[in-house]
């Protein structure tokens, strides 16, 4: 029997899709370029290749599909019947048959056309032949389109069928609708089947798995059965019938004692009797469900009789006991899925029955003796007649007794549950601390103090250390300033002098800075052309007296040396200061000196201010002075107003357009 995996069937493409796939493959995977001028054999070869390639592809795909789909005869009869019930065996076979026919047709087309192509005489003829071949193959495929669609539908449904292992030990649950089969399945396995109050909630087979004695059991839940003849059954019921008939499993027939499923016990009994021939050799258990609503003992006499009848029928299935009521519990069980009463017992009973059956079979098989022969339990031969009972040390016995007494010890989990559960109660981790004094267990521990971590400072001898530190500190203090004081501070006078010096220095620096900054615009005039009249004897006198020197002598000397004096007798200087060059060549008189110097001096400063120069137009000195004063007064106001004069620079346009607008050809226009 071939192993079929329903989930691994390849997707069946629709007719058009299949055509598209194959044709695009042909286009991509075969050479595409051919010319009229090529050798005819090449042309033929080219087109033949295309036809063959297309045919191969079609065949491959169709074959794959045909092989993937299971053959109804070959698979386990359960699946065979199930497929028939769900998809109609005939339709299924027909569809697959059509695919097969299509495959053969395509093969034939290819053979024919390849033969024709062998004798194609022109490119055009070969091309037309290839077109015809491909066209016919596509038509064939188009015709099987509906079958492909149907098969795809079937495939999708098959993939979703529950994977039932027909060889594994199985428990089958059947009964009337709404008796509690699905709830039972939910209880014993991890399956989560829908449970609802209306009938036919379960519409197909559901599988769950459960364990018993290290073996894995399959539990199959079926849709409810109604008491009808076989021909009248619908698809859903047929599913469960198929399962009943074909699977080798322990059958749990569910009985609803209360009748809340909508069917009375007599109806259920009738159902049982009608399907009991399907049971064959399978172990049967009758399970009375919903005992919370109605117990077995509380049943009326008739109902009880019916139940007993069913039981006797079930008993017949116990192997090797032929109808005797050996153990009631194995055949008739009660439970309630709501209160969980007896659920496990039912499961265990069913599993046990299956196990027993298996072992029986194995015992009966031919292999058993050979296996049995391998077992040999060795018993030691008694040496003498001395009795040697079991010896348990006293300590172990005591420990066991203590443990038994301590069974009632409260665990932390119990305490947690008492106090509100996991989210509410938080266990006190401090309970079991080992401390010198138990009062300290509940102390609140500070973590910070004054910006320090307390844990960094904890030390048993911390007080000692603090004491040491304090001693150090006091010692340092008493030591006092080990730093020698230098010489005394300044006197008040010295302080004043110092401040004066600093002020003077600052002024010098300021003046220098101004000089530096105006150096560009300031004309460099020799000292003798003293516009601001800085170099006057008054000034010198003032400065010298501020320094503390009597200036009179210096002023006298300066005045005596000054050149602007007219008719001054040259005084021969006696004593130390003979640096003046002019003194050496004593012959030059004032006028000559004047002329020598006059080149570098401006005209205005050559003469005194009020001197009347002939040609200027003034009658006398007074008039000139008046004119000078008038001129001065006239310009005074203008200067004060800081008005622009002729000599002042003029900017004709303050904001020329080319500088204040427009984009730059390169760069950013961040600033203007």
């Amino acid at each position, binding site marked *: 029997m071939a192993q079929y995996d329903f989930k691994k069937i390849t997707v069946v493409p629709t007719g058009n899709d299949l055509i598209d796939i194959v044709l695009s493959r042909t286009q991509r995977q075969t050479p595409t370029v051919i010319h009229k001028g090529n050798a005819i054999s090449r042309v033929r070869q080219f087109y033949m290749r295309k036809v063959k390639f297309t045919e191969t592809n079609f065949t491959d795909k169709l074959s794959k599909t045909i092989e993937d789909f299971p053959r109804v005869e070959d698979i386990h009869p359960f699946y065979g019947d199930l497929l028939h019930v769900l998809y109609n065996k005939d339709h299924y076979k027909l569809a697959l048959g059509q695919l097969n026919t299509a495959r053969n047709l395509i093969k034939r087309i290819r053979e024919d056309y390849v033969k024709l192509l062998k004798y194609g005489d022109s490119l055009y003829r070969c091309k037309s032949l290839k077109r015809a071949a491909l066209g016919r193959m596509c038509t064939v495929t188009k015709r099987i389109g509906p079958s492909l669609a149907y098969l795809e539908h079937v495939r999708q449904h098959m993939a979703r069928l529950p994977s039932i292992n027909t060889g594994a030990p199985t428990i089958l649950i059947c009964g009337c609708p709404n008796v509690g089969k699905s709830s039972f399945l939910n209880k014993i396995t991890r399956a989560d089947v829908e449970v609802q109050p209306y009938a036919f909630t379960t519409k197909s087979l559901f599988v769950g798995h459960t364990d018993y004695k290290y073996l894995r059991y399959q539990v199959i839940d079926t849709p409810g059965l109604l008491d009808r003849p076989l021909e009248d059954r619908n698809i859903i019921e047929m599913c469960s019938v198929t399962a009943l008939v074909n699977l080798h499993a322990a059958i749990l027939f569910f009985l609803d004692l209360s009748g809340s499923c909508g069917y009375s016990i007599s109806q259920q009994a009738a159902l049982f009797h009608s399907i009991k021939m399907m049971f064959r050799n399978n172990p049967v258990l009758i399970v009375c469900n919903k005992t919370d609503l109605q117990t077995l003992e509380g049943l009326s006499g008739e109902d009880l009789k019916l139940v007993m009848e069913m039981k006797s029928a079930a008993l017949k299935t116990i192997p090797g006991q032929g109808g005797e009521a050996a153990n009631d519990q194995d055949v008739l069980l009660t439970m309630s899925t709501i209160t969980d009463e007896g659920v496990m017992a039912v499961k265990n009973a069913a599993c046990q029955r299956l196990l027993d059956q298996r072992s029986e079979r194995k015992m009966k098989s031919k292999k058993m003796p050979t296996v049995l022969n391998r077992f040999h339990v060795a018993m030691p031969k008694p040496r003498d007649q001395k009795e040697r009972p079991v010896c348990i040390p006293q300590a172990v016995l005591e420990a066991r007794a203590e443990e038994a007494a301590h069974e009632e010890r409260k665990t932390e989990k119990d305490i947690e549950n008492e106090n509100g559960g996991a989210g509410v109660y938080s266990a006190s981790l401090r309970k079991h601390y080992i401390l010198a004094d138990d009062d300290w267990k509940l*102390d609140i521990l500070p973590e910070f103090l004054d910006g320090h971590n*307390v844990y*960094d400072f904890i030390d048993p001898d911390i007080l000692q250390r603090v004491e040491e530190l304090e001693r150090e500190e006091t010692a340092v203090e008493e030591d006092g300033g080990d730093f020698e004081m230098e010489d005394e501070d300044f006197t008040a006078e010295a302080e004043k*002098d110092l401040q004066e*010096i*600093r002020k*003077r220095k600052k002024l010098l620096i300021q003046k220098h800075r101004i000089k530096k900054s105006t150096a560009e615009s300031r004309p460099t005039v020799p000292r003798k052309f003293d516009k601001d009249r800085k170099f006057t004897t008054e000034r010198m006198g003032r400065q010298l007296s501020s*320094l503390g020197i009597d200036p009179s002598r210096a002023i006298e000397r300066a005045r005596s040396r000054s050149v602007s004096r007219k008719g001054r007798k040259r005084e021969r200087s006696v004593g130390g200061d003979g*640096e003046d060059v002019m003194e050496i060549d004593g012959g030059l008189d004032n006028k000559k000196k004047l002329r020598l110097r006059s080149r570098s001096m401006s005209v205005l400063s050559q003469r005194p201010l009020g001197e009347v120069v002939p040609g200027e137009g003034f009658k006398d000195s007074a008039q000139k002075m008046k004119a000078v004063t008038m001129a001065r007064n006239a310009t005074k106001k203008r200067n004060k107003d800081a008005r622009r004069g002729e000599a002042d620079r003029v900017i004709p346009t303050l904001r020329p357009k080319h500088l204040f607008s427009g984009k730059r050809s390169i760069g950013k226009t961040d600033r203007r």
Partner: protein
Amino acid sequence: MRLEFCWFCSSKIYPGHGIQFVRNDAKIFRFCRSKCHKNFKMKRNPRKVKWTKAYRRLHGKDMTKERKRNRPERYDRNVMENTLKAIKKIDKIRHDRAADHIAQRWKPKAAKERREARKELEQSISLIKAPLAIQSQEPAITVPKIKVKAPKQQTVEDQLMEE
């Protein structure tokens, strides 16, 4: 909870402040504020950034930190009490010592200033007082006399002789 120190500036990080960055080699970097975090991301070395404690300690501007002890002890209420009292005292001592350290740093400056002032007074006294005046007033402060060789005076006879 414990107070951590910022990896960059070494200031204390109180709970609820700052960012903690865990690198792929499992080293944890804690930052007190985004300034430090951003500096770290720029890969700056705290030992070179002036305002951090690391720089200040390295360059002797602040007192170096004491190492902390990490031996776990069994809880003892008396020890805890003593510790809490001691923390205050230790804090004060530490604070005082740090202040001392900084004061020590500043001390030489006063002496230096005084020396410089003295020198300035000596050298620049001539700006406000003429040497002659000083001599007459304070014989204590003497300005060194500078001797300059005078050029020889050519007498009239000599000049006539030259011509």
